[in-house]
C-alpha cells in the first residue's frame, strides 16, 4: 500500500505511521544459522528463563496496577523482557532442535534455570518495585559486559537489551525513592519488601551453581561470570539505597538452586498459568 492509496498519510505520519506489511517478524530476533553449543545453550537458558519468568510475573499487574499509567509502564517492561527471552530461548533451543515455544511451554519446573528472585510473588507494589530494583541493577551490568561476548548472538541480544534495561533501572530507582521516602505506610511496606526480597539477590552472583565453575571455564570470553557482577551491582544500588535511607538486609540469604532446576513453591503455579493454553491446545496459534 502506498501513501496515495489512502488519504491518511499525513495524519499517520504524525503518530509514527507503520506499514504493517513492512513489519517483518524475524527482525525482532537476534539470531544466526549456527546452532549454540551445549554450554552456550545452557547459559542462554539461564538468561532467557530469568527474563521469561520475570516477564510473566510483571504481566500479573496488567489491569491491577495502582494507576493506569503504571499499568502501562510495567507491561512495557514485561514486553521488553519477553523480547529478550524469545531471542535467548530460541538460541538455547537451537542446540537441541527445539523452538522457543518448546522451551517455554513444554519444559517442566525442574527444566527451568531461572534464579529464585524472578519467581518471587508480586506481593504489594513495594515488593514488585524492590524485585525490579534488584533485577534491573543485575541485568544492566550483565548486558553491558555481554555486549563484548565473542558469541555474536549473545552480543547482539545484549546490545539491544542493555538500552531497555537501562530504562528499567531508572523506573525502579524513581519508585524506590518515592516509596521509601513517601508516607509512613509506603516506607513501612518498602522495608518489609526489602526483608522479603533481598535474600534472593545473593544467588544471582553465584558461579558454582549447576557446575557453574566448569561451565564458565568453558565459556571464557562468551559469558559473563555471575561473581564478576556483584561489584557493579553494589556500586549501582548503593547511591539509591543511601538516598532512600535503606539498608540492604544481610541477616539471611536464600538457598537458591534455580540454576539446578530446584525452585521455590512459587514457580509451579506460575508455569501452570503460563503453559496451560499451549498444553490444552497443542499447535494453536494466535
Amino acid at each position: 500500500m502506498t501513501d496515495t492509496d489512502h488519504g491518511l498519510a499525513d495524519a499517520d505520519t504524525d503518530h509514527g505511521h507503520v506499514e504493517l506489511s513492512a513489519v517483518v517478524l524475524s527482525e525482532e530476533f537476534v539470531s544466526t544459522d549456527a546452532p549454540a553449543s551445549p554450554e552456550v545453550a545452557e547459559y542462554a537458558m539461564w538468561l532467557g528463563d530469568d527474563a521469561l519468568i520475570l516477564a510473566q510475573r510483571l504481566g500479573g499487574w496488567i489491569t491491577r496496577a495502582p494507576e493506569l499509567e503504571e499499568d502501562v509502564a510495567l507491561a512495557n517492561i514485561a514486553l521488553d523482557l519477553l523480547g529478550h527471552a524469545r531471542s535467548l530461548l530460541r538460541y538455547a533451543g537451537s542446540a537441541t532442535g527445539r523452538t522457543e515455544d518448546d522451551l517455554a511451554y513444554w519444559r517442566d519446573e525442574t527444566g527451568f534455570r531461572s534464579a529464585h528472585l524472578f519467581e518471587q510473588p508480586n506481593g504489594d507494589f513495594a515488593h514488585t518495585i524492590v524485585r525490579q530494583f534488584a533485577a534491573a541493577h543485575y541485568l544492566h551490568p550483565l548486558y553491558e559486559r555481554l555486549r563484548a561476548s565473542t558469541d555474536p548472538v549473545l552480543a547482539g541480544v545484549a546490545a539491544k537489551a542493555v538500552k531497555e534495561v537501562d530504562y528499567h533501572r531508572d523506573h525502579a530507582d524513581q519508585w524506590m525513592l518515592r516509596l521509601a521516602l513517601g508516607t509512613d505506610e509506603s516506607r513501612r511496606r518498602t522495608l518489609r519488601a526489602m526483608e522479603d526480597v533481598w535474600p534472593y539477590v545473593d544467588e544471582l552472583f553465584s558461579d558454582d551453581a549447576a557446575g557453574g565453575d566448569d561451565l564458565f571455564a568453558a565459556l571464557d570470553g562468551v559469558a559473563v561470570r555471575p561473581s564478576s557482577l556483584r561489584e557493579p551491582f553494589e556500586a549501582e544500588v548503593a547511591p539509591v539505597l543511601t538516598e532512600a535511607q535503606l539498608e540492604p538486609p544481610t541477616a539471611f540469604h536464600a538457598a537458591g538452586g534455580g540454576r539446578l532446576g530446584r525452585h521455590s513453591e512459587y514457580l509451579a503455579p506460575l508455569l501452570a498459568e503460563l503453559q496451560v493454553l499451549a498444553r490444552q491446545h497443542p499447535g494453536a496459534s494466535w
Partner: protein
Amino acid sequence: MTAEAWPLWEVFVRASRGLSHVHVGSLHAPDEELAVRNARDLYTRRGEGVSIWVVRSDLITASDPDAKDAFFTAPEGKNFRHATYYTAAEGVKHL
C-alpha cells in the same frame, strides 16, 4: 484512592529536530519526573518523538470557550491582515 488521585499533566512531544512540540494528550502522574516517564511509556514507544514536555494541566490558562466572538471572529473584510494583500514594489525582486 480517588481522594488522593494523581494530578493531571498535559504532554507535548517534538517529532524531530526543527519541529515544534505538539500536544499529544494527557496523563496522571504523582510528580513531574514520573510524568515525563509515563509520557515516554504512553506516547513515544513507536518512534513518535525525540523530546517530551509535560506541564500540570491546572497551570494552563485557557481562553474562555464562551468568548468565541470576541476572540475568534473570522477576519472577514480585513484582508489587510494578510501579507498577500500588499503588492510588492517593483524594485523588490526576491520577495
